[in-house]
């Protein structure tokens, strides 16, 4: 955190008032505990219980900028040719609150894919441009977490408009962008004291200290290779579900489908994953990745090789969801470790 960043304090007692004012001006999204084990980013209404503390949410905020299903246009058959109607874009001013630094950084990786090319994705651009990301410094690492191994930090600010640090009776606020300043202005804040700053910095250092890097990411990226025998070992165990990809905050592959009725229909896109057997299977039946071995290679190589080559950034921020939710304990940390040590 740069020394120049504006530092404020919101007393915990003033949090409720801030949330109310945020809801008046924005669509507010935040972590909500749906069951004992599932926390998801959901719209926050006046009676919604926000779950700011506790473990990193089960699902990342990705669906709010890249929905699982999104209509692109509708079409109708008519004399003289079909008519197409674009679905329009969704630019509702939105604040996503309580975003962990890994997930904020993941939004930047989605930006790489959807915004950095010459052709911007208009649907993603509209949602993303209207979204203010209010982060929360991570205190409790989950068992799959490895942000510090892939260049991140529990208090990282990349992709955030402001960062909250929970100091017990108050939140230290680090304002990072103009949009962050706008939403901070809706809170009853006081200037942060030197002690507040020191406490926040100490917390950030302590959190990072709990998470030593597990491998050298540059070595791992360098050594990931097409012929590695490890792909077949992973594939033997992999059951080819999409839990890893669909929980991943940076996975962004989608399929495009038509839903047709007698006189028209809609074309939509929906999440897809390289782990499914029908992913990129051609109409005539050819499958460029005929077995799970090629699919295992694809997921890891896409994140740690192809995206690095194309954008300079790996498509992984170490959130650990794939690690924790793989039904057969395929642990991407172990895969990267193997490559980093060049044992594969």
């Amino acid at each position, binding site marked *: 955190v740069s020394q120049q960043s504006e530092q404020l304090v919101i007393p915990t007692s003033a949090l409720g008032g801030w949330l109310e004012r945020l809801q008046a001006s924005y669509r507010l999204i935040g972590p909500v505990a*749906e*069951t*004992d*084990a*599932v926390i*998801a980013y959901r719209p926050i209404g006046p009676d919604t219980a926000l779950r700011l*503390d*506790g*473990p990193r949410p*089960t*699902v990342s905020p990705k669906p709010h900028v890249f929905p*699982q*299903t999104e209509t692109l246009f509708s079409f109708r058959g008519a004399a003289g040719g079909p008519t197409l109607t674009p679905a329009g874009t969704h630019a509702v001013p939105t604040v996503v609150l309580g975003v962990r630094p890994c997930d904020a950084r993941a939004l930047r990786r989605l930006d790489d894919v959807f915004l950095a090319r010459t052709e911007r994705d208009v649907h993603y651009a509209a949602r993303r441009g209207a979204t203010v990301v209010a982060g929360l410094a991570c205190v*409790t*690492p*989950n*068992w799959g*977490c490895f942000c510090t191994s892939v260049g991140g930090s529990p208090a990282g600010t990349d992709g955030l408009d402001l960062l909250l640090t929970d100091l017990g009776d108050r939140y230290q606020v680090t304002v990072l962008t103009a949009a962050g300043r706008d939403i901070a202005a809706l809170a009853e804040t006081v200037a942060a004291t030197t002690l507040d700053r020191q406490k926040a910095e100490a917390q950030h250092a302590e959190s990072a200290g*709990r*998470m030593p890097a597990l491998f050298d990411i540059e070595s791992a990226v360098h050594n990931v290779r097409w012929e590695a025998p490890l792909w077949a070992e992973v594939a*033997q*165990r992999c*059951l*080819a*579900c*999409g*839990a890893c*990809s*669909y*929980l991943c905050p940076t996975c962004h592959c989608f*399929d495009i*489908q038509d*839903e047709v009725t007698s006189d028209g229909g809609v074309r*939509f896109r*929906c*999440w*897809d*994953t390289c782990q*499914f*057997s*029908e992913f990129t299977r051609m109409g005539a039946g050819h499958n460029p990745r005929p077995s799970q071995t090629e699919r295992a290679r694809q997921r890891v190589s896409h994140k740690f090789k192809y995206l690095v080559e194309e954008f300079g950034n790996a498509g992984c921020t170490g959130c650990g*969801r794939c*690690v924790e*939710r793989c*039904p*057969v*304990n*395929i*642990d991407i*940390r*172990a895969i990267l470790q193997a490559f980093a040590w060049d044992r594969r």
Partner: protein
Amino acid sequence: MQELEQAIRDTARKLLAANQVRVVLGYAPGSVPFRTVPVFIETAGDADRLVWGPFCTNNLAVYLPALAGAGPVAVVAKGCDSRSIVTLIQEHQVARGQVVIIGVPCTGMADIARLAGDGGSLHGISVTWDGRGTLGLGDARGERQVMVKNILQERCRVCEHNTPAFADVRLGEAAPRMPGAAEAFAVVEELNRRPPAERRAFWRSMAERCIRCYACRSVCPACYCRTCFMDKASPRWASKANTADENWMFHAGRAFHLAGRCVECGECERACPMGIPLSALNRMLDQDVRARFGYTAGLEPDGAAPLGSFQPDDPDPDCSEER
């Protein structure tokens, strides 16, 4: 060295050394001390990689259909897993002579969400097992002990067949009946007491939460269709759009396909990242099959499955019956 683990290793070593099987499917240590991984042991010398304990949660029968035909396979099987294998034999997905069931009496698998405790994290935790019923945990909060029976996965707590009903090699002594075995259908009865509209709303909210990752389908040994109806591109029975209706079509369709075949191993519910209580759905169908056909899935490889066989006097309940 606990006895069951040693017995599993000895059995695997013998089977492989005598060339009775090509591979032994079992559990090896996972990437963290509270997980194991499915492992494919192909040489007697590797048998000592096998482990046993309260984290051997996977139903390894799921790997059998793909392995069948390449030589006999031995499977380390808990009660639920053995029932899945029996079902696969009944349904001709694996030949009886091609599988050796190594039956292990099971005292229940630990729920790692409960292991963490309320709001706790398993980050950096050390876990030891005394080979009986106690786990020793160690982390920054200090050392403590947890009884496995207090943190069981719900499907294990209510398991009715924790000692394999059918096995080729039986290891150890029969395990005591699980504490909640008589309550296996309590979840169904609780749901059935709710008015239909409330039940519909409940399942709809679950369908809305589903992300269609298909982890439930992937871990299910009974879901071995080469092309699932959900994946069929032509004709497309279901849309790939994630809507509550399409998602419900999937879960209802899967539940019906599992009627009389589901062994309540509960892997679907464990694998679901979104906490959807899929066991309740499957148990609902199972309760009907048990009531109407007097049949429990996965106990006898020679038994005729009610929905896989025809009898002239099959029950034919009135379709309009309110339930």
